[in-house]
């Protein structure tokens, strides 16, 4: 029983959150902050796989998020809302609950395929040159969507609210909050399973020494392919959730600033630590909200904090340790790998 404490607490916490939101104890603003937190956790932990565990320097995570956001929004808008270009809804509203996770999965899958743009060059390229490829990939995605008039181009794309409303019509509970919590849990769980599996041990091996890893029979190309696709796929999932929280997407909200933001979170939390990534995503979201009254000075204070962090604790909050490494007694309370 003790071994399941952590899992039970987590699900209970989620249920409590949902009930509180349902009863209106937490207001809309707080709910949206929690949902943003979830999205940031997914982004941060997925980028941590590439930048932290694999030791690459990917600075185009926003691009994959953008691909996922547009792909899943396109599916839901096509299915459930009336759009003057894409036509009448294809599916009845009653199927919304079933179709929404599929739409999210579709977004993630398309983003994972987009991850190939970075994964394939990474076979030959490393370090700074790979960083440029990710950067260019981000620009290409934004620029391509800017030029697609059918999905709104630079004006953005909307109509996702219809799906959320359709779900609310079926059962009136805070659906988006539940989806975000579920998605967050799924992402952290799958990343945790991956990096602690025998296969996933190859990822830190690449970070330490690629050639040595290859000699030790790690199929480095395959590892890179998996890591990049998993990372960008989860970013796509985060994008899909983000798009449906806001009900509106604009290509320029996924530009290099977004990628920088995610990078900040990764290095704040510590490279190669999932609990660090989660912690820093939560902290960073709270920090952004707390510093909101500072307006534009916010973006002076946050970089300054990170510079100070780099000077005095460059490994981030957690370094490459997990929470359970720092507090070994925690290990009693969970059983998952």
């Amino acid at each position, binding site marked *: 029983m003790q071994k399941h404490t952590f899992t039970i607490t987590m699900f209970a916490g989620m249920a409590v959150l949902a009930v509180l939101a349902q009863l209106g104890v937490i207001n809309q603003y707080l709910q949206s902050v929690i949902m943003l937190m979830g999205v940031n956790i997914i982004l941060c932990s997925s980028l941590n796989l590439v930048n932290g565990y694999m030791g690459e320097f990917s600075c185009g995570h926003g691009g994959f998020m953008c691909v996922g956001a547009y792909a899943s929004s396109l599916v839901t808008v096509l299915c459930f809302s009336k759009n003057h270009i894409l036509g009448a809804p294809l599916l009845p509203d009653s199927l919304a609950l079933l179709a929404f996770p599929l739409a999210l999965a579709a977004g993630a899958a398309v983003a994972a395929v987009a991850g190939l743009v970075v994964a394939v060059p990474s076979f030959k390229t490393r370090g700074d040159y790979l960083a440029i490829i990710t950067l*260019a*990939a981000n620009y290409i995605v934004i620029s391509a969507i800017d030029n697609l008039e059918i999905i709104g181009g630079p004006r953005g794309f909307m109509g996702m609210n219809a799906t959320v409303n359709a779900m609310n019509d079926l059962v009136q509970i805070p659906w988006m909050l539940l989806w975000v919590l579920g998605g967050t849990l799924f992402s952290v769980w799958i990343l945790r399973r991956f990096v602690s599996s025998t296969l996933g041990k190859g990822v830190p091996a690449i970070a330490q020494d690629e050639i040595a890893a290859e000699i030790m029979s790690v199929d480095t190309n395959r590892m890179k392919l998996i890591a990049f696709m998993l990372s960008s796929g989860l970013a796509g999932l985060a994008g899909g959730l983000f798009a449906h929280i806001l009900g509106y997407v604009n290509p320029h909200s996924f530009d290099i600033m977004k990628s920088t933001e995610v990078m900040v979170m990764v290095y704040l939390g510590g490279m190669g630590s999932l609990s660090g990534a989660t912690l820093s995503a939560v902290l960073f979201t709270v920090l952004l909200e707390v510093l909101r009254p500072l307006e534009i000075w916010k973006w002076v204070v946050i970089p300054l904090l990170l510079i100070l962090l780099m000077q005095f604790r460059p490994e981030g909050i957690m370094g490459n340790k997990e929470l359970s490494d720092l507090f070994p007694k925690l290990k009693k309370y969970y059983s998952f790998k």
Partner: protein
Amino acid sequence: MEFFQHVLNALQFGSFYALIALGYTLVYGVLRLINFAHGDIFMVGAYIAYFVAIMLLGADGVAAGAGLSPGLTLAITVPVTMILTSLVGVTLERTMYRPLRRKGADRLYVVITALMAGLILENGNLALLGASRKSFPELLQKVVWTFGGVSVTNLKVIVIVAAVVVFGLLQFIVTRTKIGMAMRGISYDKFAIPLMGIPLDTIIVFTFILGSSMAGLAGILFAMSYPILEPYMGALIGWKAFIAAVVGGIGDIRGAIVGGFLLGFIEIGVVAVFPSTLRDLFAFSVLLGILWLKPTGLFGVAKTTKI
């Protein structure tokens, strides 16, 4: 004739990219550090030029203006801006990069610091000076020469000549002088160089002075060509110049020039044929293709890694 007009425009745009890319490549060549703040140093350079120019001209309602003539103002603005901009670069080096280097921190942490320094420059500027755009005073009487349908302004010629001269100068410094030899030495082995009696920090500061003053020069020329200044002007052009430097083979001066002009030609070429919104898409796709085929850039040399 339209073709030659496009070529001229491409040369002008390429010159801006090349001037900024040179700063990236110099610092990278010596320190193996991507100085992500460089694009914003270019922006700061343009702003410094603006303030120096209006101070000297007495334009824009500045009471303390010296009321000099535009020509004299330009002659003073260029060196003053280059010196002040290089001070900004050196300040970044002294306060942020050097302490990290002393601690022997991983290269990555320095890169993050650089990225954050860029954000501070951008947003600090926005917070201090507000979002209103500044319009740069006209310092140079515009002269248009026309050769058989191709019109050239004197500014365009100055920009292109400046890029070529700077390239020649830097190539000379790096390959022919003692300090250049020291710079190449540091990039080869950072630990052996101090043992040879070469002051490491002095050489690095010199590198930052060179790179930042070129960014300052690019800032003035850019502000004169496109006289609207805004805090984010350095971000996009900086990233693009950086990509140009990498495509040329980062760390190589010839690479920066070739990459910069290549980017200029691609962008103008795309705009000449397709709608201008497709410019970034094509430019970045071509550059991605080049990196795909030649992973270390056009002039870059692949290093063999030992276990």
